[in-house]
């Protein structure tokens, strides 16, 4: 049962994060995704988000559900940006977090 409550919290975190990301990105970018630049703030948010969601055991002082909730929120903020924006940032964030996950669980 507790699992399901956490599951709902993560989903709500994703939905709210997506809405926040969508609203903020439309304010920040007034034109469609054409220039294909990487947004530094979105990149930082994506890296922190994916790290918190995937590599939460590294942060022993914070309960896992809090790390994952914040991580999912940040991931959703970047994924939920105006269509096109946030795509590269998400891939980079996921790749870095995935690399550390592999190092942590498979190699070490």
């Amino acid at each position, binding site marked *: *049962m507790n*699992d*399901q*409550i956490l599951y*709902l919290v993560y989903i709500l975190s994703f*939905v709210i994060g*997506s809405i926040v990301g969508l609203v903020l990105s439309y304010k920040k970018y007034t034109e469609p995704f054409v220039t294909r630049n990487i947004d530094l703030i979105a990149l930082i948010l994506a890296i922190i988000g994916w790290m918190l969601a995937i590599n939460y055991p590294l942060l022993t002082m914070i309960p896992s559900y809090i790390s994952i909730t914040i991580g999912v929120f940040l991931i959703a903020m970047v994924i939920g940006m*105006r*269509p096109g924006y946030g795509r590269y940032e998400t891939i980079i964030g996921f790749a870095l977090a995935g690399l550390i996950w592999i190092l942590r669980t498979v190699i070490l």
Partner: protein
Amino acid sequence: MNLMGNIILNVAIAFLVGSVLFGLQRKIMARIQMRPGPPIIQHLLHTFKFFIKESAFPKTAAMPFYIAITAMLCVIWVAAVIVGPVTEGSLLLFFAIYAIHKIVEHNAGSSSGSPYGKLSCVRAVYSAAAEVPLFAVLIIIYLKTGTMIISNIVTFQSQHGALLLSIPLAALMFFVLILSKSPYSPFAITKGKDIVSGYETEHFGLLRGYLMFSESIAWYMLLWIFLTVFIGGLNPVGYLIGMVIITAFVALINAVTPILNPNHSVMTQVTLAFIGIAGSIITLLY
């Protein structure tokens, strides 16, 4: 947690996940078709939007049935959540719920008084003739496992392996059923764009909100049944990954196929149902 809390929790999960999956499907379809596509949460935002829009009622609508039908759709899919994730009850009840869903599609179209709704209503009867046999996959599951109770089917799979591997044709049949219920599907004749939005065309505002709410739960529940019955009990992350994979696969099919005309749609579904039932029974016998 008490039963009511459990029901509310599962209905909330079903609605949110179902809505996001519908959004994901549209996004994947758009990317395949070289379009940017809407945000993933677009379907969810649309649903919320309809709840605060003004409701209008056509003069031709058959009151109070026109309004009651939206509540009925809501009730049957909330009932599906109770039968499924909450109590893990009988698959027979799902069959009944699905049959009522087809009746609701039919009556939502006819009660509006719109020609588009009425065409959709006729198509709902056509498609019921094909989709109800596809749901007969449940009989094959009974023949294989000896039970219709979901929790027993999950236990059976933990001992004998996933049913997806032992009765794959039955799984294929159920997948065709899932495909039929997805928007923009080649089999989605009741909501084909040639009849605007089919049986939903004349439902506005709050009523459309209820319809979209119910459809999101329906999508989640169909995927939940597929994963539970053919793969076995999964943890929430397993369910989520499974649902995302199936939705992505459905989006791929929908993006590259045109909508079939009603006759071709129904005949294709019936043919697949026949192959699935006959093939599964032969597999079970030998």
